[in-house]
């Protein structure tokens, strides 16, 4: 193989490598930015469900990780930013699921208490009636 042919081959390989890398970086950038956006939306959703008022540790963790993901992104660590954004998104989802569960548990407890109150009231009425006879 002549030296000039070798140069062409190497130049072609380099061009392919550069194109490949450029494509990858765009794809990665899109993905990690999507993950950051998803984490932001999940945090807002968890807040709307009252996770902050309930002092959710998961929501605090999600916020901290989102901040860390943004810092990693600014420093050019796209993989780190993506991992942190994914974790922030999931932490916020846990906070939201916990808030929904707590609300349902609260409703179930309230209903149980109202049934107990109703039963007590009916029992007292019955005793009062029997006392009058």
């Amino acid at each position, binding site marked *: 193989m002549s030296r000039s042919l070798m140069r062409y081959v190497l130049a072609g390989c380099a061009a392919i490598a550069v194109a490949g890398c450029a494509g990858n970086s765009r794809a990665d950038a899109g993905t990690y930015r999507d993950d950051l956006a998803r984490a932001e939306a999940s945090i807002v959703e968890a807040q709307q469900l009252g996770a902050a008022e309930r002092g959710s540790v998961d929501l605090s963790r999600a916020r901290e990780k989102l901040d860390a993901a943004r810092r990693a992104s600014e420093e050019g660590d796209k993989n780190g930013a993506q991992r942190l954004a*994914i974790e922030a998104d999931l932490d916020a989802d846990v906070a939201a699921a916990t808030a929904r569960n707590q609300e*349902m548990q609260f409703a179930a407890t309230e*209903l149980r208490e109202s049934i107990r109150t*109703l039963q007590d009231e009916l029992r007292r009425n019955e005793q009062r*009636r029997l006392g009058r006879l």
Partner: protein
Amino acid sequence: MESRVRAGLLASGLAVICGCTSLPDRVDSLEQARAQVLRLEQDRLASEVAAAELAAAREAIAQAEDAFAKKARLEIIEHKAYVAQRYAEISKQRIREAHAREQLAEGELERNRILMQARERKSERADLQAAQPEPEPERTAAARQ
């Protein structure tokens, strides 16, 4: 001189190899995720309300196991295990919520049953009272005279 450089390079190479293979025998977070998913799958409501989340947890566990088998960085394996744990936690919350919803529905039925019983008793008492003739004060007074 050359032999020193060779020895240095060899030592560096060994250090790199050791660094790459210095994974622990087991990754605790991965074990915990596995155990958590197995436990949650036993719940009768799991497939109804948390099928997607449990599938995502299983997928993350598989990815963590794959990364472990390929001797990936511990950071990557732990990230995948964390993802699995979080999906498992979401599943747990959804399953608990579903149980509470069931209790709520049963509670409402119970309350309606109690109210219905109370109404029936009241109506029975009213019927009994209506069936008993009330004493007529005028006639009894006349009879005494």
